[in-house]
């Protein structure tokens, strides 16, 4: 039995038994290589679920949709390891109760999905442990290395040309499972810290703030990068921040649902070589 069929069966069981009220997965998209999020709430619809190598979007963000989990019922969701880490963070930041989330874990190596065994976030603790320090995918690796080798001024020029394309559609924010704030800092206008205008300066500010707020929280699922309609390599900034946090504080975002958020905790002996 293919993993797709196996998971359909499992989804059907979960829905039929009433164990979950909804399954969030993938279904066919508008072109053969596209997959779209699917929200299945009846056992009959389970057949529309698709699971293959093209299922890469991180669906965990839908769990914090207003009101979805407020009835205490459970929801099943298809997640790759990054998605499972995202659940840990959302739970650690008290955005959801991880017990309400049934995980249909999978990974994609090459084009074939493989099943991950477990159903609760804690079942995947060991797996997540092995991922620590490993870059989840190598897209953009070359560019990343090139950027690292540049001088600050060259990097600034690079980002200037990238951010000048930004149209402030906030697709990066909306696609990110970690950007759950009801009111984002750019939407606050008293004071208006970030210019809402999408001139390059405003775009710089926005992207710096976005990256800062995701430092130590980003699971590198790549949702922002894929969502960006003007192809800004956003994941490079996030990867830099993830690496920085790992190195400085040994913090691997989303390791467990009790992990303290890195920016809301401290150690007395944190590095401070830069402080005069």
């Amino acid at each position, binding site marked *: 039995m293919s993993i797709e069929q196996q998971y359909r069966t499992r989804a059907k069981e979960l829905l039929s038994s009433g164990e979950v009220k909804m399954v969030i997965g993938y279904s066919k998209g508008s072109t053969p290589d596209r997959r*779209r999020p699917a929200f299945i709430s009846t056992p009959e619809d389970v057949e529309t679920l698709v699971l293959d190598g093209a299922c890469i979007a991180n669906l965990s963000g839908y769990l914090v949709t207003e009101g979805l989990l407020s009835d205490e019922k459970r929801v099943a969701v298809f997640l790759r390891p990054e998605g499972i880490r995202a659940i840990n963070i959302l739970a650690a930041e008290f955005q959801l109760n991880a017990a309400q989330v049934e995980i249909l874990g999978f990974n994609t190596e090459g084009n074939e999905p493989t099943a991950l065994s477990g159903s609760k976030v804690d079942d995947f603790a060991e797996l997540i442990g092995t991922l620590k320090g490993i870059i989840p995918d190598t897209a953009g690796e070359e560019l990343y290395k090139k950027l690292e080798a540049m001088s600050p001024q060259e990097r600034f020029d690079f980002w200037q040309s990238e951010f000048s*394309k930004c149209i402030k559609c*906030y*697709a990066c*924010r*909306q*696609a990110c499972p970690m950007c759950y704030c009801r009111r984002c800092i750019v939407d606050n206008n008293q004071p208006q810290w970030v210019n809402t205008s*999408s001139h390059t300066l405003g775009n710089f500010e926005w992207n710096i703030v976005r990256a800062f707020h995701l430092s130590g929280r980003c699971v590198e699922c790549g949702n922002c990068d894929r*969502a960006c309609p003007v192809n800004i390599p956003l994941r490079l900034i996030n990867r830099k921040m993830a690496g920085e946090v790992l190195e400085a504080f040994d913090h691997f975002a989303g390791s467990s649902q009790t992990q303290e958020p890195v920016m809301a905790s401290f150690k007395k002996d944190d590095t401070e070589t830069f402080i005069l």
Partner: protein
Amino acid sequence: MTKILYTDKLDNCVERWRSAGLSVIGPVRNANITAYRPVGSAADLELSQILPDRSIKELFFPQTEPMMRYSIKKDAINTEECLPPVGPRIIFGARPCDASGLAIDDPLFGWDYKDEYWFNRRNETVIVSIACTKSDEFCMCTSLKLSPDSTKGSDVLLRPLESGKGWQVEELTDRGREAFKAIAELLTEGAEAAAPTAVVAEKFDADACSEWLRNPENFESRFWKEISVRCIGCGSCTYLCPTCHCFDIQDEGDTFTGIRRKNWDSCSFALFTMHTSGHNPRSTQSARWRQRIMHKFNYFPGKFSANSCSGCGRCTRQCPVDMGITETLQEISKLSQ
């Protein structure tokens, strides 16, 4: 016999236009994205892409533009208008869907109050469109009574030759004829056949959809929730759309000097309609998606006699969650049967 412009003359054309004082704009690929940008020579033009990633509207309605500069002194406020730079320009290689998008928005910006920021640019711009010989699964102009070679909004329409070596020239307006006078001697009279235009399958019945949308009963249909459940509420569809025209007015600066700007805004943002009291007339994403569809295919045509959609398909092409107008209208077509 028709006038023909051969590709190898294009560089000359650009030069002629530039020396005639026109700034030449066309699809340019830069930093992984194709957009309408000023070109120095024909070599900068990227004409092979089905259509540029970003729409043409930003040349007339930029994502952010200064409207006025203010300076405040003790007992005087000085407002300096920043009307767009007036200077003739020619857009070479627009796609017919983009060009018609501009024509669709003209009545809106000219409705009683004329928006100079839009019309100053419109009146100074010649639009030379190239008919499409390629399309993809997202193109849907034919479903909106337009076509890969529609002339709406264009001043000149070029039809690619079968040989791929040039274009048949169809001058549509005085403005277009005027601009092509400058390159008259670079054109050749010929009978070479044009390549067949792209075949764009009709994806939905826009009239039937409009009728369904006009029925007040359907406003509260469950359909809206179901179709928009995966919408994440970003603005990429509206910002890439050649006809979406909503904007915000924002001040930047301090108590003494600063700039008032006109910025793109999107009906898919929750804060778009939020009252200060906290009341939000369109408080759910489904209500916002419904507004977008209703506005484009019911309200707008009711006022300005054209659907506010030119069928470029960018909304679906770029949607992070694979939504878009096509799918919604296809579903409505099914419902209206």
